[in-house]
């Protein structure tokens, strides 16, 4: 059933599970738990469509690099699936071979624990299971980098695909325009008893369930937990001060530009760093995309590119050749884009600002930081890809100055993949949730979504989020 909490404010049932958030994680959990016969209360803070009023809650104070949450996340039914790109690539088993980075442990579970859910996750995301994940180009580099193997969802919009199913579900009651304001604990502070909810007219009530699952994404989940400080000043689930720490993104670094020797090559190639290269250098993983500018001819670049290789091949003196290369102004055939793994780092974090929203909740203070491990990943990956590209006689790469010059600040952007802020760890000192996605401090509070990622690999997070949700469903059913 579907209710607008601005008008229908009676929630008097006691549910088996209360799921907060209707993005891919929340909707998947609600559907699967409902199928298992459990009664589910599904809460969505926004409405059924985009609105500035709802989106305003993503306004935050920026202390470090800006990941633009207000523009990358969507706060209405279906969540950020309403504008995701659909790129899907599974985690590698090596992502789960726990290795310590920056003094923090990696995943406490093995890939084999989420692999069985890959097929169903692919169905949910409308992927072709028979085709699977195919390399998109030939293995032209052969050393350090393999062709990246991924596939694309249509992309699946969870609102379009599942709104009607939820509306007609007997076990799911979904209330939209219902913002969760606070979680209340029992006397022993071991369990959540109920959640305080408000509509946009500031009418508040409480809802109760046996179990609660937060599915609010990598920024709003820690913000909500830290704002629940009426009974525990540090916030709920934050006894080891880990809530909000280790914010990770996939780093979008423009490594430089390139020239193909074979001008007829038109496809944008994508490569993925292999495990041997990553382990040998103790760096993070990366996806490298050679994105071609399609209008090369109209820019009159073809002749310049031909002249570049012709002049390199001529018998100039070395000084003249160096001078010629230094003065070569052609911007190339395209840019080298990346999706680079960021390491977990305690200083990169989400905390609470002194500013408040219209419900009186503290807004997010957002401090996204990279560290020396990440800088090493970026520089060593950049240098290696340029060398193997030239060694394979594909052409030439011009690296951005900050790749070769350690004194220059690295320029990087975002991919809108917000991860790590309630990371999974066996030891409560290094994470917020245990191996079952249950908050360490509590008996009945779970978290789903990319905020539980211990490390982020170099794959898009939506499909692994679904795999982890299906695994959590099985755990809750049992």
């Amino acid at each position: 059933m579907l209710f607008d909490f601005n008008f229908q404010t009676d929630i008097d049932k006691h549910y088996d599970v209360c799921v907060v958030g209707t993005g891919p994680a929340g909707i998947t959990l609600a559907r699967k738990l409902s199928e298992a016969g459990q009664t589910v209360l599904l809460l969505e803070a926004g409405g059924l469509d985009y609105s500035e009023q709802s989106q305003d809650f993503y306004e935050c104070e920026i202390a470090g690099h800006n990941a633009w949450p207000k523009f990358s996340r969507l706060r209405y039914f279906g969540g950020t699936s309403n504008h995701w790109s659909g790129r899907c690539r599974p985690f590698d088993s090596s992502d789960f071979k726990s290795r310590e980075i920056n003094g923090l442990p990696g995943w406490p579970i093995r890939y084999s624990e989420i692999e069985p859910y890959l097929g169903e996750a692919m169905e949910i995301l409308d992927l072709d299971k028979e085709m699977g994940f195919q390399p998109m180009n030939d293995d032209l580099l052969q050393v350090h980098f393999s062709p990246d193997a991924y596939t694309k969802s249509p992309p699946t919009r969870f609102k379009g695909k599942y709104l009607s199913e939820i509306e007609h579900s007997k076990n799911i009651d979904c209330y939209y325009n219902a913002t969760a304001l606070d979680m209340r604990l029992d006397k022993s502070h071991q369990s959540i008893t109920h959640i305080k909810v408000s509509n946009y007219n500031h009418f508040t009530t409480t809802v109760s369930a046996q179990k609660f699952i937060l599915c609010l994404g990598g920024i709003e989940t820690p913000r909500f937990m830290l704002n629940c400080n009426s009974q525990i000043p540090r916030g709920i689930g934050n006894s080891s001060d880990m809530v909000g720490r280790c914010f990770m993104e996939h780093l979008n670094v423009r490594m430089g530009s390139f020239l193909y020797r074979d001008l007829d090559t038109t496809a944008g190639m994508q490569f993925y760093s292999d495990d041997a290269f990553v382990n040998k250098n103790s760096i993070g993983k990366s996806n490298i995309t050679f994105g071609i500018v399609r209008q090369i001819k109209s820019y009159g670049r073809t002749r310049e590119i031909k002249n570049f290789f012709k002049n390199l091949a001529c018998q100039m003196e070395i000084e003249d050749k160096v001078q010629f290369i230094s003065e070569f102004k052609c911007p190339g055939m395209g840019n080298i884009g990346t999706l680079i793994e960021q390491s977990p780092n305690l200083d990169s974090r989400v905390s609470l600002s002194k500013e408040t929203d219209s419900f009186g909740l503290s807004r997010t203070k957002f401090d996204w930081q990279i560290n020396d491990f990440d800088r090493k990943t970026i520089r060593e990956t950049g240098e290696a890809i340029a060398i193997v590209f030239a060694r394979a006689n594909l052409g030439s790469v011009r690296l951005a100055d900050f790749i070769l010059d350690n004194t220059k600040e690295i320029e990087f952007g975002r991919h809108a993949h917000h991860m790590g802020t309630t990371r999974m760890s066996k030891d409560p000192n290094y994470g917020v949730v245990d191996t079952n996605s249950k908050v360490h401090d509590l008996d009945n509070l779970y978290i789903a979504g990319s905020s539980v990622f211990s490390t982020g690999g170099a794959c898009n997070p939506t499909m692994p989020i679904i795999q982890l949700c299906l695994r959590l469903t099985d755990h809750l059913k049992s």
Partner: protein
Amino acid sequence: MPNSLHRRSFMSSILLVSLAPLTTTKRPNLTKNQVNENQQIFRAVKPLDQDFVSVNGWVLPKETLIKGTR
């Protein structure tokens, strides 16, 4: 008065005659500038490993600079 005028113009003309060739014939020190230019050019070259160098960011095999490309 006429005497002093004569002396001044005489001195001025001597000065002009002696300085003019110096200023017009003075040429930049070519050897020194050439060295600076070459230093500047090679400052753009950075070895990356035993086979590759970067020139102003362009990553190229060393052989390319020495012998030209294949």
